[in-house]
């Protein structure tokens, strides 16, 4: 077992290649449906995808537009001229015998992703380039034979290639998570990780600290979750350090991640590497773009995570709250526009911060714990604003507010919240004389005498018990802060 002490002698270096499935209606070079989810095998395959003789690719312009948007999200330059190339290998899921990709002149140039880390620091991961390419089909193996499904063949992807700027498994996870946010916010992908909308290949190497050269790397292919990226990087680093500690050499190879066993396994070594015989694709003219066109496409984009962070940070929100909001925006897209809701009250900082925190602590928690909950279409901004106002005016305790909020999620029509709270008896009593009577009653109660004694002896903690008694007697309506004040006055 590698101790932390031994591991600390080594530097971990990670580069990530990420395949993002583009959210186009049709495939990269044919006019058939791009969404292969839940379709019967080989039902969304055109003669082009099937690679019949004489078929020619017709480039889907929508894929180019999405690549241009992805380029902005990656802070990258967009190439004025980019081209497609052919990558050759034989496999039954590759109908043409080559994958159409961009080897020599990719559409997206160098860029950078700013990865926010939990400790508030930011890690910059440089992007080497990103290119457009088509996906292959899928093989399913049954004993001695295999079945080919070409539904996914020809699906447009962009492959984002990072520089080896990542030096911890946590940063690797942070990077892929940030890529996910960038690509979903930019509308580049639907981001369905379960169906492989984003897949990660992680290149990991280990070298003694201060070494002039990077160690031999192993590439762990086809990871489909942020967690597996983190785990695979961690595992791979330890495995390599162990090899190096034994005075042996790491083999440059492709490895797979076994999620059940939580380990990587060798798939093929560099010696078996194929010669892809890359060649320009003469069937597809170059993509020629000009500044005006690029600017117009990039202007027509929603706000990206980095901009949202700046806005939310100005409200004084914590790291975790901000990241929760950013993730929830994706998670519940189509149900509710969380960020837009907060932004609409952004001028009232106090209120916006309250609604942001309320959303994080209550709304999102409920949505996540009750996945089948139908939240309907009521105006949640109005509801949360009403709750804010009632709490601000001391009419509603946060405890009752939570109960009320949960009750109103998914109602057909939003009632007047204060009226509803009143009818339900949630409004708290802030009338001092009314509460004073209850306070007196509680303090006189024999059950309270021990606590009263302790309080007099300076044990402040017991005040909670007394407040609790008051709340109970008042049916939860007493303003607890007021009750506390009145207790202290009397003792």
């Amino acid at each position: 077992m590698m101790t932390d002490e031994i591991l600390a002698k080594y530097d971990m270096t990670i580069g990530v290649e990420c395949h993002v499935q583009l959210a186009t209606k049709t495939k990269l070079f044919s006019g058939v449906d791009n969404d292969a989810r839940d379709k019967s095998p080989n039902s969304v395959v055109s003669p082009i995808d099937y690679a019949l003789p004489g078929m020619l690719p017709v480039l889907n312009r929508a894929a180019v537009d999405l690549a241009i948007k992805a380029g902005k999200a990656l802070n990258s330059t967009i190439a004025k001229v980019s081209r497609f190339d052919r990558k050759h290998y034989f496999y039954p899921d590759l109908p043409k015998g080559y994958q159409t990709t961009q080897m020599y002149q990719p559409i997206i140039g160098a860029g950078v992703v700013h990865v926010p880390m939990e400790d508030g620091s930011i890690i910059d991961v440089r992007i080497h380039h990103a290119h457009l390419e088509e996906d292959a089909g899928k093989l399913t193996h049954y004993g001695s034979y295999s079945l080919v499904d070409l539904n996914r063949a020809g699906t447009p992807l962009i492959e984002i290639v990072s520089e080896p700027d990542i030096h911890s498994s946590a940063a690797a996870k942070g990077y892929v998570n940030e890529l996910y946010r960038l690509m979903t916010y930019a509308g580049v992908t639907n981001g369905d990780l379960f169906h492989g909308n984003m897949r990660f290949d992680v290149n990991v190497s280990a070298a003694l600290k201060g070494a002039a050269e990077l160690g031999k790397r192993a590439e762990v292919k086809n990871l489909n979750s942020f967690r597996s990226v983190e785990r695979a990087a961690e595992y791979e680093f330890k495995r390599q350090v162990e090899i190096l500690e034994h005075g042996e050499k790491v083999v440059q190879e492709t490895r797979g991640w076994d999620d059940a066993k939580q380990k990587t396994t060798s798939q093929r070594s560099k010696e078996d590497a194929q010669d892809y015989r890359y060649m320009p694709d003469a069937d597809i003219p170059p993509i020629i773009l000009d500044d005006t066109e690029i600017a117009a496409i990039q202007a027509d984009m929603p706000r990206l995570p980095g901009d949202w962070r700046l806005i939310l940070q100005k409200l004084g929100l914590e790291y975790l709250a901000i990241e929760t909001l950013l993730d929830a925006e994706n998670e519940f897209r189509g149900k509710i526009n969380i960020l837009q809701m907060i932004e609409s009250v952004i001028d009232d900082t106090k209120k916006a911060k309250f609604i942001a925190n309320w959303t994080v602590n209550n709304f999102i928690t409920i949505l996540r714990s009750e996945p089948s909950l139908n939240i309907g279409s009521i105006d949640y901004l109005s509801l949360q604003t009403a709750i804010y106002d009632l709490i601000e005016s001391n009419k509603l305790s946060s405890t009752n507010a939570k109960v009320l909020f949960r009750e109103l999620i998914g109602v057909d029509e939003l009632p007047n919240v204060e009226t509803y709270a009143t009818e339900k008896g949630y409004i708290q009593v802030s009338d001092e004389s009314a509460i004073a009577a209850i306070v007196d009653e509680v303090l006189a109660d024999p059950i309270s005498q021990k606590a009263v004694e302790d309080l007099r002896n300076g044990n402040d903690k017991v005040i909670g018990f007394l407040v609790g008694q008051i709340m109970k007697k008042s049916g939860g309506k007493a303003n607890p802060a007021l009750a506390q004040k009145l207790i202290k006055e009397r003792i």
Partner: protein
Amino acid sequence: MTISDIQDQIKASSARAVVEKVIAKAREKADYHALLNLTEERALQRADDVDAGKITGKLAGVPFVVKDNFLAFGAPTTAASKMLEHFDAPLQATAVEKLEAEGAICIGKSNLDAFAHGGSTENSAFGPTKNAFDTERVSGGSSGGSAVVTALDIVPFALGSDTGGSIRQPASFNGVVGVKPTYGMISRYGVVAMASSTDVIGSFTTNVADAELVSSIMAGCDVRDMTTLPDFFQVQTEVKPGQKIGLIADFMTDGVDADVRAKVNQYVDGLKAKGHIIESVNLPMAEYALAIYYILVPAELSSNLARYDGIRYGHRAEAVKTLAELYGRTRDEGFVTENKRRIMIGSYVLSSGFFDAYYLQAQKARTLLINQFNELFKKYDLLIGPVAPTTAFKIGENTADPIKMYLGDIMTVPTSLAGLPAISVPAGKSDVSGLPVGVQLMGPMRSDANLLALARSMETI
């Protein structure tokens, strides 16, 4: 036989009668092995539809033949290979669709070198096509079958594909008009790809006017082929007078048979007599064109033929145990020797470590060649020269020597590499062999109409 001859016959009888007669003639001439399959049933059905007025158009009822690397209904699309021997196309090539939309009737599919690899049709998996004028000799190729059916007057026109001379050379060998249009003028959609950057679709006809008609129907932008150009082809009824024509001196050396050169000179004199100015010009890069061609084209075709793997359609080897064996045996059985030779060359020049030295170097040389053409076209309206160094050679004469066979392409590949239009115009028969000789006209991009107009005027030389 011209298109208008056939149209007169249809008027005098019926489309069905004409198509029946054409098919009977095709059967009668079966010994030439110009056709691999007839599309008789579909052709007769269409003829009936023409007679019933259901099908109309500029070519209503006019029979034609397509090279069997065009996807077309009525018979398998074999590309003259075992690989596709039983492949029934589920759709048709754009060129075929456009002709059918004008009422033309495809009556059969013609022989070629398998996957269009060759210049004699001797590489057909189903045996060679014989020359229309001497059955001991080759038809030329790869579109040999289409040239011969036209020369034999079976049909007034036939379609071919030209990657490095595959229309022009067989046209020259059989005394018909063969047109290789500007790259991108006619859609390649639905034609079995050989080399994507030089493949073009063109026609064989017995006269130039028919070539103009057929070209005007097939030309135009096709959304299914991104390399097609917006339609620019407009038939030019008048010949532009006093054109400056460059006679390519590099093509008039001892490497070209004297009887071929004599015919070219005769037509050069004829053009001079018509008031055009002819000057000798040099195209020094022509020397390298063959080397460039036989690097780039094998590279591209090795890629384009990768899809024939026995997985989805076409020939599939039986009783194989592994995937590698399935690929290996399927491709070994489905391809002819010349296919394999070119796939090997192409795979080699694209291999890691050789790509820069071969493929990239050849692309750079290709650019220099194109630049030389561009320079010439600043001064000249068009260029003239022979099509092939010889007249049709004997069947079997060159089969043992691929290099000698490749040398036959030396004057057709330069324009292919540059994407330029070129026509093989019949120039009568050799004084030595009595076999047909063609003269080649070559022009700048999009000058197809001018080339055809000039070619038309040459019919009176």
